[in-house]
């Protein structure tokens, strides 16, 4: 989770694109994946994200994302496959549970769609510095700073929380608490000693942060921006590419 959303420092072409372009790409890619119902198109989208990850120098990190999405998608596919009785029956996996051609078609489509629609979002977060995203949202998109700040802060806190969770798990294990059990009934009992400290410490942290923000004049007047975000030729090319992808998704259907 931590690795899927964290910014990776770099100076590639993708890094230097306007954050708005990247945001547009993430949204457009998502829309395109839901518009199109072609395996080939979705596979192409997935390939495109691999190319972008390569260009941004985060291929290793992206591989982790693909793996996580694949596991999630695989289970989705499995359920979809088992609960689609329509179509021509290939064989029965269990008595009364057929595997059909429709099932196979839709389940693979679902899995590909999920992978192709979500990976651009994670790539966008990996390749865009948070404060640039914030500037783009408030300065160019005119999102009220208060709300943009809330969104960006939530994303920024995820690594901090996951670190906090590690510490909490270690503290409880030191007190003889077994954190690894396979029994689902015991799982609830195992999780409570870890969730409560996390919850309490996050509330404390947020409270402290709110006060420290106010003492530094949060949202008291018009803001100034250190960095001007301009559009370059690469942005133009990227936007043309995005439009092409969107149109293609509609044409292919």
């Amino acid at each position: 989770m931590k690795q899927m959303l964290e910014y990776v420092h770099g100076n590639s072409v993708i890094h230097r694109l306007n954050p708005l372009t990247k945001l547009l790409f993430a949204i457009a890619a998502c829309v395109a994946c839901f518009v199109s119902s072609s395996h080939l198109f979705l596979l192409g989208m997935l390939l495109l994200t691999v190319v972008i990850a390569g260009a941004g120098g985060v291929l290793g990190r992206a591989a982790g994302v693909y793996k996580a999405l694949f596991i999630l998608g695989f289970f989705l596919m499995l359920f979809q496959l088992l609960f689609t009785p329509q179509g021509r029956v290939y064989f029965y996996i269990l008595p009364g549970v057929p595997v059909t051609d429709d099932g196979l078609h839709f389940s693979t489509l679902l899995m590909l769609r999920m992978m192709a629609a979500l990976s651009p979002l994670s790539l966008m977060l990996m390749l865009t510095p948070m404060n640039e995203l914030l500037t783009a949202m408030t300065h160019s998109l005119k999102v009220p700073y208060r709300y943009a700040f809330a969104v960006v802060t939530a994303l920024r806190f995820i690594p901090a929380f996951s670190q906090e969770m590690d510490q909490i798990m270690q503290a409880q294990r030191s007190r003889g608490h077994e954190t690894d059990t396979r029994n689902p009934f015991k799982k609830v009992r195992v999780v409570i000693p870890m969730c409560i400290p996390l919850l309490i410490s996050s509330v404390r942290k947020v409270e402290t942060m709110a006060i420290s923000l106010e003492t530094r004049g949060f949202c008291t007047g018009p803001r100034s921006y250190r960095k001007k975000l301009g559009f370059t030729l690469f942005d133009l090319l990227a936007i043309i590419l995005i439009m092409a992808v969107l149109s293609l998704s509609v044409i292919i259907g």
Partner: protein
Amino acid sequence: MISIRNLCYRYNKKAPLVLDNISLEIGRGEFVAIIGQNGAGKTTLLKQLNGLLKPTSGSVTINGLDTATTRTSVLARHIGFLFQNPDHQIFCSTVYDEIRFGLTNTGCRPEQADERIRRISGLLGLDGILTRNPFTLSKGERQRVALASVLALETDILVLDEPTTGQDYRECVEIMEIVKDLNRQGKTIIMVSHDMEVVVDYCKRTIVLHNGRVLEDDDTGIVLRKSESLGLAGLEPPQIIQLALRFGPLFRDVTSPEDMARAIISCTVTGGARV
């Protein structure tokens, strides 16, 4: 009791060594301080002791148990561990339940657990607040609740990661006196501290870590006189030793105000004065 042999550790394959070929023997009943700069590897070394981190190479053995193959929850019966931040472990709705949590985990009988909780809470001045919710307590009190929950396990070894942070001077002395008492009863104490005054007052042996290596390991009185090593590790001797160092070789055994007074008296007597 604790035996560390050629311990090396890195957080992942590409990262540099955090612990670099550390070998230590710590016997029963010792009172050891581990000091060094932030990032020297102190907390990492402590976490090796109860198996929260496993050696990259080398070995750590606690009471004959190899930490590489023993689960932390099993090691918890031998080694009590107090973390820097009490809020990482507190989750129960009463102080009583919080102290009891570890006892239930290690399979302590109910009546025995009850007796231990009363004794420990009395010791730490928590007996008046056993029914309070720990989240409403002050930071100092929460730290003592966390300490109580570790002490209740009655392990032979106690590992304390900066137990006196967030405490005022009086609370700090109270906690250290309790720890000293436990040491007198035969428990092995290993603590990390940034407070050189605490180290010189309580710990008999001091280990200086620098960049993951053991820079010094000897009696506290000797180690804290090595200004060069301490300087390298970004530390300063405590005031009493700084003063003794300025007075010269006759004051080489001074580690406390009492020693200082005695040394001054003997100097003036040998100098011809009458006391």
